């Protein structure tokens, strides 16, 4: 089995505040994830703002250095101690796409110059080699080189430009693409085109994806695995359909309950919103305990360990059995 994505005791601490009142934010706190598969997979990382999902992406992309621990992509350590040294090797293992394509491309440069640059960087020096690589990449996202050549970002719609940025990421033929909120800036009518593109690239080009999002519905639609994060910790991980179909961690349940769906009206009850975000990062026990309806004394004292279940699901909750039952009764 190939290790598609693995993090080992990954930590990233940020320091906030001045000299006197300095607080440490554990943006990633002992994150252990492991996805093994011989086939390409789409892994979703979901959570609210401040859950650490973007920090995890940045660590994997080497944009920030982890405080400790390491991350492995396709059997190669990419971040932390012993990370692969060669930049070229790194770039042809993984590639990023970002949230807002209009910010990813400078308004004063043609978009194809970015694509050429990427092709040069991975070793295509000759002109014909470059344009062949560009042509192939653009074709695979449903665009033509002739339509893109010499154009500036403002001549594209958000959906088209996001396709160009996916094409750029495809040029080095990466094994995995790290996509941080790739569709949240794109209108509903065009969003599914991008999401379906991920699925077809996975089939046709064997490209895996790490899809970072706060939108659970598209995560459900597209992904094989899903990891739910809260305040720098993983709370639930496993098969996407299983987890969103029958969530066991109370936080996953809360998230699912809060989505505005179009097939069922909300019950008129609200959960307590968190008003002590920064403090929750300091909790030594379960970080969700302040809002959790099942919390008991043990949640304050001990960080819940990963409960591994037969189907491969991991739930970080002391009372996973209880929450599963409670949800069953409610349904």
């Amino acid at each position, binding site marked *: 089995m190939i290790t598609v994505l693995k993090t080992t005791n990954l930590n990233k601490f940020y320091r906030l505040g001045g000299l006197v009142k300095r607080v440490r934010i554990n943006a990633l706190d002992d994150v252990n994830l492991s996805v093994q598969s011989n086939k390409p997979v789409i892994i979703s990382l979901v959570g*609210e703002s401040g859950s650490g999902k973007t920090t995890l992406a940045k660590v994997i992309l080497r944009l920030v250095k982890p405080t400790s621990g390491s991350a492995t992509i396709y059997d190669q350590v990419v971040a932390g101690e012993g990370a692969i040294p060669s930049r070229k090797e790194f770039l042809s293992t993984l590639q990023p796409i970002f949230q807002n394509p209009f910010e990813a491309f400078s308004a004063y440069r043609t978009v194809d110059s970015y694509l050429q640059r990427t092709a040069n960087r991975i070793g295509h020096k000759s002109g014909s080699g470059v344009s062949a690589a560009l042509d192939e990449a653009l074709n695979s996202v449903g665009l033509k080189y002739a339509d893109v050549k010499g154009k500036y970002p403002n001549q594209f719609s958000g959906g088209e430009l996001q396709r160009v940025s996916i094409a750029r990421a495809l040029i080095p033929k990466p094994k995995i693409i790290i996509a941080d909120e790739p569709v949240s800036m794109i209108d*509903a009518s065009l969003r*599914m085109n991008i999401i379906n593109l991920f699925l077809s690239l996975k089939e046709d080009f064997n490209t895996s994806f790490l899809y970072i999002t706060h939108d659970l519905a*598209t995560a459900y639609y597209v992904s094989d695995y899903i990891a739910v994060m809260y305040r720098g910790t993983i709370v639930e991980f496993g098969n996407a359909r299983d987890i969103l179909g029958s969530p066991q961690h109370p936080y996953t349940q809360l*998230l699912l309950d809060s989505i*505005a769906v*179009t*097939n069922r009206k909300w019950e008129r009850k609200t959960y307590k*919103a968190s*008003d002590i975000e920064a403090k929750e990062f300091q909790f030594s026990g379960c970080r969700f305990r302040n809002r959790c309806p099942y919390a008991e004394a043990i949640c304050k004292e001990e960080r819940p360990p990963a409960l591994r279940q037969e189907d491969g699901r991991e739930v970080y909750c002391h009372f996973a059995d209880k929450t599963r039952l409670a949800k069953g009764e409610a349904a």
Partner: protein
Amino acid sequence: MIALNNIVATYTTVRGQVNAVDNVNVSIPNGNIVGIAGESGCGKSTLLKIIYGDILYPLSLSQGSINYGIEGKNGEISTKDIGQYWFKRISYIPQSSMSSLNPVVRIRKQFLDFLEPGQNKKAILEQVREYIKGLDLPPEALDSYPHQLSGGMRQRIMVALGTYFKPDIILADEPTTALDVVVQKGILLLLMEIQEQMKNTILFVSHDMGVHYQISHKMLIMYAAKVVEFGDSEAVFKAPMHPYTRMLIEALPTIGDAKEREGVSGRPPSLWDKLVGCRFAARCPFATEVCKTEEPEFLEHQPGHFAACHHVDRVRQA
């Protein structure tokens, strides 16, 4: 009843004039939450600005009028003098609370901005403190600066500012888009509760159809500066008359339903071009020849349910 009579809103730019809202003719009954949906650039925020009377260059109301159904000092108020009734009769809840609140002034001082001469500051502040308690905000929030509050709390402050005077009309422009789902749900339930108590009319802009399904009584769908459908939420969600509405509802996946979803190809037409026929025709699976040449009229196809489409029957049967 708010009657929008043939509204045309125009932006003047160096390239010339462009109509961001084009001939909108809708009557909105009182006491409803009206959801306004559409893609970015369809004119939904511009329509809200016009209704709010916040018409500043380069925006102008080049045609049409609005009857608010509100009696002011000099008879019925119009877009010209509605500015005098901001907050008291009509209020506006924006998307970004961080750029709407003054960052260097405490919240309580911002509440006193609308104080009239001679009013007792202390007494008013007591009332405000009491009021925000009902909105699930700690009374100390009033003594904070905006950056000391979380995004959800700031947005609750915006709701408090927008509803304190029990205005007849509340305009909300994507008030929860920047928030996490859990916080969003709390704010939306709060708005619904307030509306049920005060019976005001809320015009609620959002691009999220799920949010509209949860809170809106009526739906108004816009596409490329035109209103394409208007009717009771229930009817619109159950049997949309316009193919664009149908697409908006069906475009996004739902949890528990793994059915394949298709996006729509193409993009909205540029408003700079001379537009003939139906503006959705190029992307519409139901389009025929007539759609390319003739603009569909905005008609009442069923009581209270309007749509602008040549093929309403076919859309409903599909």
